[in-house]
């Protein structure tokens, strides 16, 4: 495994120093804890504070999404590990502008415990905190157990909705309502082609033969749910969409936002080949694509592969997805 790092134990701190130096117009580190990153220009009186977070290794998520129309602050964890309550609480204080704060994160045991502890502490300081846990990963639990599912690439679309709603002056209750709605209509299925290597162990997150792929990967290098021989992109896209649509049927006239998300080491050429087939299949079904995102939004270090996410949108969600955003690693005009 070759990586451009100095010392495995220092990767998160050094990444943050570089990130803040590169994007000082957008973000700053809080003095008490350098893992607390907040916006320089989005917090304003009466606006709901939006916090998302989780472990490192998912860049551009989460810190690259701090900015206007998106999130106001990010507590940063170790690689693939939830941040502790300390930086979460500190970011909460910094982004609360009197209208309360919403926590958004993928539904993982560690994130749930640490963010809940921080929410409790913030509550004791008089800051109202609400939480929406993102559960878009179809492969992570069966249909009847949606609330046990994990958050993966769909995180990005749900953050987008929450950030836009807060920027448009929605109250905390209303941000929670529309964000929960967005989560309920967002589904992701992924395919892994190669593992990632945690710089602190130097080992691959799982084994996959040179001619194999794996459906249903997690975004932490967790193994998927079904291994098989690699197939042409059109077949893989078809299989991913079949699983999404079996879980969340779309019919003629429905509108969807499409996200083809890269996991770290797959090329944009491959993303667009996957997107091509996705668009064809949706056209055949008479589903209108309201907006598309193709690229790297929620990665898993240098894992190979990608995922397809569909968000079924109504007028309100469509409008929020169209709201502009200006962040270090995501701009929408």
């Amino acid at each position: 495994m070759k990586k451009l790092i100095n010392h495995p134990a220092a990767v998160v701190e050094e990444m943050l120093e570089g990130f803040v130096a590169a994007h000082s117009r957008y973000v700053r580190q809080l003095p008490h804890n350098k893992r607390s990153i907040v916006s320089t220009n989005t917090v304003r009186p009466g606006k709901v504070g939006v916090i998302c977070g989780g472990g490192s290794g998912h860049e551009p998520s989460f810190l690259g999404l701090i900015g206007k129309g998106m999130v106001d602050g990010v507590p940063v964890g170790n690689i693939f590990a939830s941040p502790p309550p300390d930086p979460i609480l500190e970011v909460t204080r910094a982004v609360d502008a009197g209208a309360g704060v919403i926590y958004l994160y993928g539904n993982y045991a560690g994130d749930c415990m640490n963010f809940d502890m921080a929410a409790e502490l913030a509550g004791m300081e008089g800051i109202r905190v609400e939480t929406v846990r993102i559960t878009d990963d179809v492969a992570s639990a069966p249909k009847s157990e949606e609330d046990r599912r994990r958050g993966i690439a769909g995180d990005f679309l749900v953050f987008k909705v929450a950030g836009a709603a807060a920027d448009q002056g929605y109250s905390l209750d209303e941000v929670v309502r529309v964000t929960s709605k967005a989560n309920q209509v967002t589904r992701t299925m992924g395919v892994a082609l190669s593992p990632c290597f945690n710089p602190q162990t130097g080992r691959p997150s799982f084994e996959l033969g040179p001619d194999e792929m794996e459906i249903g990967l997690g975004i932490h290098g967790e193994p998927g749910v079904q291994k098989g021989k690699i197939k042409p992109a059109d077949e893989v896209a078809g299989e991913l969409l079949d699983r999404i649509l079996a879980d969340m049927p779309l019919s003629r006239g429905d509108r969807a936002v499409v996200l083809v998300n890269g996991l770290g080491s797959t090329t944009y050429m491959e993303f667009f080949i996957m997107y091509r087939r996705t668009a064809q299949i949706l056209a055949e079904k008479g589903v209108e694509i309201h907006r598309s995102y193709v690229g790297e939004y929620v990665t898993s270090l240098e894992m190979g592969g990608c995922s397809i996410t569909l968000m079924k949108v109504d007028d309100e969600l469509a409008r929020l997805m169209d709201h502009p955003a200006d962040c270090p690693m995501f701009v929408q005009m």
Partner: protein
Amino acid sequence: MKLTSADFIQALRKIADRIEQEKDYLSELDRAVGDGDHGVTMSIGWQAVKAKLEEFDGNSTCGEICKAVGMTFLNAVGSSVGPLYATAFIRGSAVLQGKTELNEDDIVQFWIAAVNGILERGKAQPGEKTMVDAWHPAMAALKASREAGKDLAASLEDAVKAAEQGMKSTAEMLSQKGRSSRLGERSLGHQDPGATSAYMILDSFTHTIKSLQSLAS
């Protein structure tokens, strides 16, 4: 036997050393069912604890040491083990407040309070392939052996045996909690890394108690 604050610090240091020695093995176990970093996470946490212990000595109370261990571990790792072990040590600290010397019952009460904290925070039940599968039978054995009149070292040895058995039994369990739960039947055959590090913690602590006891006798 009695355990002084200095002994308590020593026992905690030994746990940190044991985890450091075993971190690659723990990550290896985690690669089969999770994201392959359990050893890294535990190492980061326990090394931070070891550094923090430098601030304490024989005059510190076991309660304050314990609370600092919990908060230090939590803020070093986050993750899921952060809140679980932080809760354990903070609950354990409540039992040890103001004490610079612990008797055998204090130590038993400490472990029971700590493990109850893990159970309450994580809400995992035995059989779900988590650290609870080591901690839960270990505490049952500890209580039973104490009630049967055994001394601390012998009771802890029984607890370690139960933890080891529980740890091994996780290989036959389907994962129900945490990131590995997505694997379903593919989690079968793999021993849970969290149960393994739990066993190591208790085993290391028990070794320290036994060597202190043999020194004393």
